[in-house]
C-alpha cells in the first residue's frame, strides 16, 4: 500500500465508532414517511420503485417482487383483506414504512458507495499519471490492495450512520415481528371463537 493511499485516509482503532454521536437519519426517515403506506398497489410504482406490478384481484396473499436494482431489496405488495382489523392495518402500515425506509437507506448507500469508489479510483489513477481508460478503451482499475484503502475509509466514514441504521432496523424488526405475532394470535383466536359460536349455534338452527 503506497504512502499516498494511506495518506488519503487516516484513523486506526478497533472502536472507531462513537456510538453516542448524533443520532438518527431524520432525513431518510422523513423521505421514507413521505412514501408511506398507501393501500393501493399502484402507488408502489413511484419514481423510485420501477415495477408497476399489480397482483391479481382474487389473490389473498402478499406479493414479493424481484430485488430493486438500486437497493437490492425486494418490494412487497401487501394484500388488504376486506375485514382488516386495526391491528392488521397497523402492521401493514409499519411494514410498508419500514420497507420504504430501508429502501431509501440502501439506495443511498449503494449510490454513495459507487460514486465515492469511482472518485477514489479516478484520483488514484491521476496520481499515478494514468488515464481513466487504457489504450484498448477499457476502464483501468486498481488492484485489491489499493481498493482496500477505500473500503476501509468508507467504513470508517459511515460508522455512525451504520450504527444508527442498525439500531433503528433492530427496533423496527422486533416491533414488526411482535405485531405479526399479535395479529396471528388474534386471527387464530377469532377463528376458534367463530368455530365455537358456530357449533353452539348449529343445533338450534
Amino acid at each position: 500500500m503506497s504512502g499516498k493511499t494511506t495518506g488519503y485516509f487516516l484513523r486506526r482503532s478497533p472502536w472507531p465508532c462513537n456510538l453516542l454521536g448524533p443520532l438518527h437519519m431524520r432525513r431518510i426517515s422523513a423521505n421514507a414517511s413521505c412514501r408511506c403506506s398507501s393501500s393501493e398497489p399502484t402507488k408502489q410504482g413511484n419514481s423510485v420503485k420501477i415495477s408497476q406490478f399489480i397482483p391479481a384481484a382474487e389473490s389473498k396473499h402478499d406479493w414479493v417482487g424481484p430485488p430493486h436494482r438500486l437497493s437490492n431489496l425486494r418490494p412487497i405488495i401487501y394484500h388488504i383483506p376486506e375485514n382488516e382489523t386495526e391491528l392488521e392495518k397497523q402492521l401493514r402500515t409499519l411494514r410498508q414504512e419500514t420497507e420504504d425506509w430501508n429502501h431509501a437507506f440502501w439506495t443511498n448507500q449503494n449510490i454513495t458507495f459507487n460514486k465515492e469508489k469511482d472518485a477514489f479510483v479516478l484520483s488514484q489513477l491521476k496520481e499515478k499519471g494514468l488515464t481513466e481508460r487504457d489504450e484498448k478503451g477499457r476502464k483501468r482499475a486498481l488492484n485489491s490492495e489499493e481498493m482496500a484503502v477505500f473500503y476501509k475509509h468508507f467504513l470508517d466514514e459511515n460508522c455512525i450512520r451504520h450504527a444508527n441504521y442498525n439500531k433503528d432496523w433492530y427496533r423496527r424488526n422486533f416491533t414488526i415481528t411482535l405485531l405479526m405475532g399479535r395479529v396471528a394470535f388474534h386471527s387464530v383466536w377469532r377463528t376458534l371463537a367463530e368455530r365455537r359460536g358456530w357449533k353452539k349455534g348449529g343445533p338450534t338452527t
Partner: protein
Amino acid sequence: MRHLKCACAVCLTGSDSHAQTRSKWRLATCEEDIREPALCYKNMYKSTCSRLTGLVGVSVNQKLFGRNAIRNHKSARSLLQMSRRDPSQWIHHLNFLKRQYVMRSNNALYQRAKPKQTAILTVLEDHRDDGMDSQIRQVPTIDHVPMVTDVTPQPETTTTNMTATPVSSPVSTVVALAVLKPPSSKTVSPPQTKVVSSAAESGTEMLEVPHVQVESDEAREARLERQWKELKVDLAELPDVYAKLSKIKLTALVVWTAAAGFAMAPVPFDPATFFLASLGTGLASCTANSINQYFEVPFDSNMNRTKNRPLVRGQISPLHAVGFALVCGVPGITLLTLAVNPLTGALGALNIFLYTCCYTPLKRLSIINTWVGAVVGAIPPIMGWTAATGALDPGALLLGGFLYCWQFPHFNALSWNLREDYSRGGYRMMSVTHPGMCKRVALRHSLGLIGLSALGPVLDVTTWTFPLVSLPINLYISYLAFRFYQKGDRSSARKLFFCSLWHLPMLLLLALTCKKSRTDKEGVAKTSSLAPAPLPLAVQN
C-alpha cells in the same frame, strides 16, 4: 452430459448452506426469481458442492417441485437437444463462466441481487415460437445510474480468466427472454443473436464490458413482472427453506465438532447420550442460524454470498423464521439440560446468546466480532465433552482451543475476498479495516494449531502420536497461511479457505484415532469402539 450447476458467488466461498442448494438442478430460482426454467452453470472451484449431491438433488427436486417438474423435464430435454446440436459452442458458453465470479465479485455494482454477469443458460421452449427453442441469456450490469463495471484485476486471476474464457461476454447486454410474450421476444431475438455471435467472435478479455442495451423497456418490465411471486408458504419448498434457514451444512459441521468432543472424552461411550447431545447441539445451531438470518435481512440482500436466503427472498415471513427458531431452540436446550446435563444445556444457551446477541450485532460495530465468533465456534466441542463427562476438563478446553485457532485462518481467508461487499454492507471486518492484522492473525493461529496439537499428549487427551500425524496437515495450513500473509491476494486467500474446510474434519478425525486409551480401575484397557488403532504411519510404543 456435463453437469450443470448454478453460478453464484457463494460457490466461491462454499461455506454457506446456500451452496448445497445451489448444487442441485434448480428451476427458476437461480440468483433471482426467474420463472423461465434456468439451468445455471456453477463455478466449481473446489467447492463442497458435489456432483453426487447435484444428481441426487435432480431427482429430489423433480419430486418436490411438482409443478416445475414438467418444465424441468422440458428444459433438460432442450438442453440435451442443444448440446447435441453444437456441443463445442455450448461448452464455450459455459466455459466463460469459469472463474468469472472471482473477478466480478470485486466489481462495484449496485445490483448485487441480480445475476449481473452470471450468464445463465436459459433454455426456453415455446411451442408457439418455432425459431426459439434455446437462447442464451445474459444479465446486465445495469448501469442506468452512472456507474460502470469496475474490475480490480489480479494478475494471476486475470490470466486464469483469460485462458478459461474464450467467449468474452458483452455481459452488460441483456439478451433474450419473453417466450411468454412472443411479440416482444421476436423483436428482441435478432439483436440477441447478434450479440451472442459477437460474443463468440470477440473472444477477448472480459475486463471491459460494452454497455449495449438490447432489451427493450417493455421486455424488461415484462421480465420484472414475471418475477413477482405470491407470498404463501409452499409446503413442498419448506424443507429446503428450513435447510437454508438453519444453514444446514454449517450445522452439520457444528454437530460433527460436538460429536468429536463427545468421542474424545475419556469416559465409556454412551450412544444414547451421544445421540441426544448431537441432536440438542444441532437444534441449538439451527436456532442460532435462523435468528441470525432474521436479524440480517437487509444486509443479506446486499451481499452476493447471502442474497438467496429464504428471508431475503420472501419465501417465509420473519414471524415464521422466529417461530422455527423457537421450535428448534426450546426443545433443543431443554433436551440438553434435562436429558444430558445442565452444564451442556447452559453452554448451548450461552452459545445461542453469543451468536445472536453478541456476534451478529458486533459484526457491524467492531472487528472484535471475529474473536467472539471464534469463541462461538469453540463451544460445541466443549459441549460434546461436557455431555460425556459432565465437567469442564482441560481436555474440553483443548478441543475448544483447536476450533478457536482454526476459526481465524478460516474466516480471515473467507472475508479477504469479500471486502467490497463487507464495506458496502457496512460490516466491520478485519480484512477491510485492518488488512495487515487480518493476515497476521491468520498466520499466528495456524501456527498455534501446531502448538495445541502438541498439548494433546500433555493433557492426556491423545497419545504422543497425535502431534506427529497431525503435523503434515498443520504444517500445510500454516504454509498456506504464510503464503497468504506474504502475498495477501485473492488466490492465496482462496487456497487457505478451502484448505481450512478439510483441515478441521481431518484434524478431529486424527485426534479421534490417536485418542488416549482409558485404563480405569476396573481394568478396562481399551475405550469404546470409537478409538481404533493409530495410523500405520505412527511409530508404536
